[in-house]
């Protein structure tokens, strides 16, 4: 479905044209990776009209990352088995990866204090104003205008996978049934590519997903359980407001 991406640069000297470059890049990625563009590379790859080695470097890179994650997650993340109809769908990894790439474009343009929010996947660098870190809320799973928690974030990525939306849109590839133990899993760490991927894979593992995420150095997890409690890994102790 549609994703609203907000780019917020606080550096006074950064030319707004730098944001145009990042926006153009995101549209280009969408065209190549979208499974809803019949002429896009991923769609054509999925239909067997393209071989992997015929795809662009970015697509091959994402496919390689997906395969690595499939192995380390014991199949909980599998871009060939996420969708009920079996269509190849790397969107669980593409979103975080492409936003991270877009952030590098901002930094190439001189941005050091900025935040990107792509439908809840966040990169927050530097400071929104001198003297304080970015304040990131984790959405409450039931009350739409409330937060479950607040984090102080500087130079970190935040990604959440969950079942807030109507219907269970994340299927665990191994069992085919929607996961039940968690309402949401938020992952915080240095890279949005991996935070996004770990959140997707970890959510499907249920409570065990938190320990699995914490097993990756530099990454922490915050989970909201189906019985409406919250649980988090020790790495987040210093970040929770």
């Amino acid at each position, binding site marked *: 479905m549609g994703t609203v991406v907000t780019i917020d640069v606080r550096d006074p000297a950064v030319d707004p044209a730098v944001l145009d470059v990042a926006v153009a890049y995101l549209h280009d990625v969408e065209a190549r990776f979208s499974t809803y563009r019949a002429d896009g590379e991923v769609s054509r790859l999925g239909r067997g009209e393209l071989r992997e080695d015929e795809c662009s470097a970015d697509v091959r890179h994402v496919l390689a990352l997906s395969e690595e994650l499939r192995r380390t997650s014991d199949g909980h993340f599998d871009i060939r088995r996420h969708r009920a109809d079996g269509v190849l769908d790397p969107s669980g990894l593409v*979103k975080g990866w492409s936003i991270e790439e877009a952030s590098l474009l901002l930094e190439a343009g001189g941005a050091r204090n900025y935040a990107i929010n792509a439908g809840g996947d966040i990169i927050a660098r530097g400071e929104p104003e001198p003297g304080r870190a970015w304040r990131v809320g984790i959405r409450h799973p039931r009350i739409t205008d409330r937060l*479950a*928690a607040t984090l102080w974030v500087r130079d970190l990525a935040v990604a959440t996978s969950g079942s807030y939306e109507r219907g269970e849109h994340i299927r665990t590839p191994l069992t085919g049934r929607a996961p039940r133990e968690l309402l949401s899993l938020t992952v915080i760490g240095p890279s949005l590519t991996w935070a996004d991927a770990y959140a997707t894979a970890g959510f499907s593992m249920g*409570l065990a997903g938190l320990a699995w995420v914490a097993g990756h150095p530099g990454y922490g997890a915050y989970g*909201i359980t189906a019985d409406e409690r919250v649980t*988090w890994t020790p790495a987040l102790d210093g970040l929770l407001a």
Partner: protein
Amino acid sequence: MPKRGAIALVTTATALVLLLSFKTPSEALPAGSTGGSPAALAQAGPPAASLAPAPTPAPADGSGATAAPVATASPGATATTNGTIAGSVVQTRYGPVQVRVTIQGGRITDAQAIQLPSDHPRSVELSRYAGSVLRSDVLAAQSAQVDLVSGATYTSVAYLQSLQAALDAAHS
């Protein structure tokens, strides 16, 4: 997410982008909307200094959705109404969806859902923790001011329609 700065200088820049095909859907686009809706969404009202260039047309076969920036950062004054403007309430089979945008200095600085379908209560499940190393607490319902919110957002055709209505109202 307040943006402040001297009138003559662009001290902050924001861009709001609608990408219509980034994730697998929780509900399909309604029939006939693949051609019409994306083009409509890409138009952010009459051209003004702070708005995006003309949208790219949707694919002829209507199989996908192209997107164009709804608004980009630019300095300069426009005829846009500043402030907070609510879009129309769009009814879905799960309930109403309504989006509110905040416009400052001719730029969109925030977009929030002010009406979303409410969830049915789920049955309570017993949970076991993976290990005692995990912290735990009751689920709070904070109303703290934050810069950004992470969470699986409800982004659907209805949301985008209401957002577009808010933008249209801002430029009328």
